[in-house]
C-alpha cells in the first residue's frame, strides 16, 4: 500500500505540522490579543503584514523566504556566519509551514478574544485580578475554544503546505519531502497509485484532527454557550 520511505515521510509531515502549530501557539495568541485590544496608531499596518501569508500566493511567500534565507540573502549571511543552514533542510520546512499557517491561528484567536465581553474582564479586575490574572482566569477560559479551532485550522494548513515549502526547502525525498510534496512527486513520475494512497492518508489525518478537536470542544461545552 505505502512504499517503504513513505511511512517515515508521513510521520515527518505530522511531526513538522504539530511542532509548527505548537511553536505558533504563544506568539499567535499574543498577536491575536494585541489585535483584539490595541486601538492605537499603526494597527492597520500591523494587521496587514500579519495577514500577508494568507493573501499572497504560497509561491510568492516561498520566494521571499528563499531570498531572505539563501546564502547571499538578508538573513542568510548572518545565519551562515553562525553556522546555521536553513534552506533545503527540515528547518526550512518548519519555517515555511509556520509562516503560512500563522495567520489562520491569529484570525480565529482574535475573533474569540473579541467575543469575550470586556465587562467581564472589568468585573474580574474589581474583584482583585491584575491584567494578567484576569486574562488567565476570564479571557482565556472563555476564548479557548476559538483558539483551539484556530490551531486545528493552522495544523491542517501546515499538513497541506506546498508552494512555499517546495521553494525554500526543496522536494528532497527523505529529507524535506512532505505529504503534499510527495503526492505531487509521485504524480510527476507517473506513479498515481502511490499518490492516491497518500491522498487517502491525508484524508485520514484531516479527519482525526477535526474529530479530536470537536471531541475536546464538546466535552466542556453546554455550560457556557448561550
Amino acid at each position, binding site marked *: 500500500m505505502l512504499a517503504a520511505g513513505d511511512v517515515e515521510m508521513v510521520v515527518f509531515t505530522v511531526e513538522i505540522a504539530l511542532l509548527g502549530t505548537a511553536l505558533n501557539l504563544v506568539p499567535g495568541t499574543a498577536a491575536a490579543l494585541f489585535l483584539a485590544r490595541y486601538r492605537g496608531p499603526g494597527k492597520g499596518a500591523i494587521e496587514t503584514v500579519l495577514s500577508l501569508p494568507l493573501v499572497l500566493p504560497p509561491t510568492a511567500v516561498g520566494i521571499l523566504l528563499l531570498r531572505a534565507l539563501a546564502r547571499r540573502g538578508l538573513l542568510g549571511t548572518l545565519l551562515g556566519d553562525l553556522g546555521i543552514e536553513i534552506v533545503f533542510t527540515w528547518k526550512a520546512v518548519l519555517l515555511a509551514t509556520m509562516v503560512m499557517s500563522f495567520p489562520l491561528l491569529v484570525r480565529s484567536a482574535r475573533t474569540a478574544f473579541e467575543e469575550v*465581553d470586556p*465587562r*467581564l474582564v*472589568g*468585573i*474580574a*479586575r*474589581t*474583584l*482583585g*485580578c*491584575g*491584567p494578567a*490574572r484576569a486574562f488567565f*482566569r*476570564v479571557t482565556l*477560559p*472563555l476564548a479557548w475554544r476559538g483558539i483551539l479551532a484556530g490551531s486545528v485550522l493552522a495544523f491542517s494548513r501546515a499538513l497541506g503546505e506546498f508552494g512555499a515549502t517546495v521553494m525554500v526547502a526543496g522536494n528532497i525525498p527523505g529529507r524535506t519531502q512532505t505529504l503534499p510534496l510527495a503526492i505531487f512527486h509521485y504524480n510527476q513520475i507517473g506513479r498515481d497509485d502511490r499518490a492516491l494512497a497518500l491522498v487517502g492518508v491525508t484524508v485520514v489525518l484531516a479527519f482525526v484532527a477535526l474529530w479530536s478537536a470537536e471531541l475536546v470542544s464538546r466535552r466542556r461545552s453546554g*455550560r*457556557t454557550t*448561550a
Partner: protein
Amino acid sequence: MIAFAVELRLARFDLRAEARLEGGVTAIMGPSGSGKTSLLEVLAGLRRGARGRVAIGGEVVLDTERGVRLPPERRRVGYVPQDAALLPHLTALRNVRFGARGDRARVDSAIETLELAPLLERYPLSLSGGEKQRVALARALASDPRLLLLDEPLAALDVALRERILPYLLRIRDEWRVPALYVTHNVGEAVALADRVLLLRDGAVEALGAPLDLLAMPVLAEAAAAGIENLLQGRVSSHDEAGGVTRVVLDGGAEVAIPLARERLVGTPVVLAVRAEDVLVTTGAIAGLSARNVLPARVLSLERTGPDVTLRCATDGGTPPWLVRLTPAAVAALGLHPGATVSLAVKSHSVRVV
C-alpha cells in the same frame, strides 16, 4: 467615607461630579444618561480617561495631579452592574469565591445572607434574573470591599422579583454595614434603603440630601407620584386561625396584624410593605374601627410632593419613620403640623408581605 472630585469626557457632555459622603447608603438618582453609570465606573477604576481625585476610606485611589492612579484590583471596590455580569464558565459558588482570596468565613457568610445554598452548583446560564443578582451581590460582598457600587441592581427584574431582592439589600445594609452607592430610578428603593440621595443631571451633582428632602424636587416628585412604600422589618410572633390574622412584631416593638399566613413559621423574619397612600390618620381617639392596626405616632414633618402632602411620623423607638400621603384638604381639616399627636390606622389587608 468616600470623597471624590472627578472629570470625564463623555459622548454628549462632560462628567464633572464632586461630593463627600459619610458611610451608609447613598442613592444616586437622576435622568437617564446623566452619567450615573460612568460615575460608578470612574470610582471603580474602570475608566481610563478619568481625571481628578478620589479617596475611599481615607486612601487616595486617584489623584491625577500627583500621578496616583490605583488599578481596579487594588481599590477594594465591589461592583454589581445591572445585569449581574456573572462569569459564565464558573458555577455560582466559584463566582462568589472569585474575589474572596480564600476567606472562607466571608464567603459562607455572603452565601448565607443571600440564601444561595441551593444554587451553588449551578451555572449562570441556568439561573433566573433574580438568582443572578443575588449571586452577584454575594460575590461583591465576599471580596471584602470597602465600598459597594450597585448599578440599578433591581432594574432588570420585574416588580415581584424586585420585592424579593429588596429584603436582601436591607440585610446587606444592616448586617454588613459596607458603605454603598446605589444607582436607581426607583424612589421607593431610594427611600427604603438610602441615608441620602445624590442627584446627578448632565454629569453634574445637582443636589445632595436626605431622600425625603429631595422628594420635593420636581424630578423626583414625578417618580414619587408612582407610589412610596413603607418597609417594615420584623418577626412572625403568632398565628390566629380563628381571627384570620398573623401577628408580626416589628423591630421596634410594635405589633402589626396581617392576613393569615400560615406558611410563615413563627419566629421567621419578614419584611412588610405598607403603601403611604393606604395609611389613615386620626387626631382623635379610636373606637369601633375595623382596621386591626392602630399605632400612636407623632408628626415629624410635612412636605409637598406634587399635588399631595407626605407626612413623616415617628411611632415607637426602633421603627423607621412612617410615610403617609394625604391630600392637602385632609391636612388642613385635621390641622396637622409638626409635633402633632396622631394615630395611624392600617387595615391588615393593606399590609403586604414582601
